[in-house]
């Protein structure tokens, strides 16, 4: 039963991705990106990753869509017709990449199996059992994120800070003070 829901959600994701690749109205594409993230969030819930689903729904479906829409508001919303000369090499590269991937992924242990290296590694026991005695936090994902892999999270914060600074440098007031330079370029 769960598998049927999973398969249909994954099929919907694929159809949405195809529509994203085909459509030229960028506003429609931005909204479809939101739908795509929401479908991904549903799949994550079914795969027991509730925290990831939360984040994907809030950040992926919410924030990313807003970012895309804001960019389209500042630029233009219709994609020009791209000449077809790139379509065939792109299809070839994507197709061969996909073929290699399917070949490699078929070597993975079966989906949901219990005897995989992921589930047999001793660290699993530590994270799922010992961590509850050590920290008394019921949600293991929170424990991992904040304490056992706290440095990862610190790195993440550094990345977000850097990204925020870069966006400010690109779009902030300092960047705007080079207007005469751009006028000269426009005259060319």
């Amino acid at each position: 039963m769960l598998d049927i829901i999973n398969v249909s959600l994954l099929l919907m994701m694929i159809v949405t991705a195809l529509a994203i690749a085909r459509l030229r109205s960028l506003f429609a594409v931005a909204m479809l990106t939101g739908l795509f993230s929401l479908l991904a969030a549903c799949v994550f819930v079914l795969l027991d990753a509730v925290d990831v689903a939360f984040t994907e729904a809030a950040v992926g479906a919410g924030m990313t869509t807003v970012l895309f829409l804001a960019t389209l508001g500042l630029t233009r919303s219709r994609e020009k017709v791209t000449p077809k000369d790139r379509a065939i090499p792109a299809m070839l590269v994507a197709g061969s990449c996909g073929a290699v991937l399917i070949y490699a992924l078929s070597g993975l242990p079966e989906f949901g199996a219990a005897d995989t290296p992921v589930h047999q590694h001793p660290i699993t026991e530590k994270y799922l059992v010992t961590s509850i005695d050590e920290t008394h936090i019921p949600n293991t994902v929170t424990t991992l994120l904040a304490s056992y892999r706290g440095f990862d999270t610190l790195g993440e914060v550094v990345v977000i800070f850097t990204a925020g600074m870069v966006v400010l440098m690109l779009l902030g007031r300092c960047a705007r003070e080079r207007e005469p330079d751009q006028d000269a370029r426009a005259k060319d």
Partner: protein
Amino acid sequence: MSDVLGFYPYIAVAILLMIGLYTVMAHSNLVKKLIGLSVFQSAVFLMFISLGRRDGGTAPIAPMEHGHAVVDPAIIYSHPLPHVLILTAIVVGVATTAVGLALVVRINESYRSIEERDALASDRKVDEQLDQAG
């Protein structure tokens, strides 16, 4: 190909990766490229989460008794580590998308276009004019 059913999430991952890669390479529009990149990214997230999944498992949250989290060996949990890694990756992905979109806005201001081809053609024109002047 005997039990394709046991691998269906991985096949979906491969198809989504292909669609994302194709969108990035075949389109000249920079916003469309970034959207293709986020489709590609979602496929990778899906792969990691599928690897952590265990049949009959549940979300890795321990039950509470009298206000304390307790260990119940009877409950099967999916692996929490891929969840943590992907949580970090989602947030970092949004940060990099924001940087990319800011660059697109700047490119649009300088070139009056968000098409890669227009920007390259405009660059070539400037180069030719400089060659003629020098």
